[in-house]
């Protein structure tokens, strides 16, 4: 019998071009929004201040101009594998060993040796902007941004301020979070 076998080639060819276009746009959006300056700012809950000035884009970049951020933060649960029930409950944790002072990615504990190291870091940071570069601790024009966790006991910020004052750094900016703008009613 002369039956012919017809092969049906059901080849579906989706057009990938629009999909690739959209993917590229999404990729571009996420890449431009990515924040790689995590070394400068540690994860923490900042206090809210509605009267604060909004930080300009160039002020947010670490190392731009004379600005350096000092973070006073609690050990985090993820990276530092710490489970502090007091901090987790939203209360003030007063355990010295649970708190850190971080500058440019370097973490310092609240112990004498680390605080001395911190002072030498501050002296190095102050020197290029000092009035008298040969004299350590002379008045420096560098701006230091203090970013502290809202639950941090003030004593830890005092210790940081003491080291800053000793290094001649007197221009202090307090890093806070501004509340989201209210939406107009109606």
């Amino acid at each position, binding site marked *: 019998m002369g039956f012919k076998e017809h092969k049906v080639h059901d080849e579906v060819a989706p057009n990938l071009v629009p999909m690739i276009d959209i993917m590229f746009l999404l990729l571009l959006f996420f890449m431009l929004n990515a924040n790689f300056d995590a070394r400068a700012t540690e994860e923490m809950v900042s206090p809210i*201040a509605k009267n604060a000035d909004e930080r300009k884009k160039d002020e947010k970049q670490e190392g731009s101009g004379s600005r350096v951020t000092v973070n006073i933060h609690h050990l985090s649960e993820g990276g530092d594998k710490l489970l502090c029930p007091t901090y987790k409950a939203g209360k003030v944790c007063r355990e010295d060993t649970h708190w850190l002072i971080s500058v440019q990615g370097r973490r310092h504990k609240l112990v004498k040796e680390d605080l001395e190291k911190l002072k030498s870091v501050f002296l190095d940071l102050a020197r290029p902007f000092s009035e008298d570069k040969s004299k350590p601790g002379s008045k420096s024009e560098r701006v230091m941004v203090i970013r502290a966790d809202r639950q941090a006991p003030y004593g830890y910020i005092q210790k940081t301020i003491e080291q800053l004052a000793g290094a001649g750094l007197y221009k202090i900016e307090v890093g806070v979070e501004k509340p989201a703008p209210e939406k107009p009613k109606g």
Partner: protein
Amino acid sequence: MAGGPSEDNPVGINVTAMVDIIFCILLFFMCSMKFKAIEGKLDSWLPLDKGGKASANLNQEKPEIRIVLSFDETRGIVERYFGRNPIPPEQGDLKLESLIDAQNKAYESQGFRDDKAVPVIIDAGPKVPWENVVNVLNMCKGLGVKKVEFGFGSELKK
């Protein structure tokens, strides 16, 4: 398949590998994406001539507006003082705000303005949560206080 060889274009490019890689990169950026909160700043200065330590003296001749914050461990609350006068917690921020404003205006009328402006010194104890210190700083900023300084020591001497 799009990108495969056709009559017009005999050289076919296999886009599958590229799409795979783009998907991976897209996934990475999507996962690492974080919407940041609006960052703000509050300017303040350390007393140039004194550093942080010398501001412990409450009986200075130099005019100043001193806000003392102290943590009461038995009650678990932050006590606030305007100079040596306690501000009852029930009177809230408004009382302290009005006292700072009135004192600041009084000094301004005496000629202590611009460069000679009298500083508001926030003098908090080591156990006071940072949030409470920032609250006073925010209050001063809202009132248009020119100089805000950090002092420490008098809280311990009380």
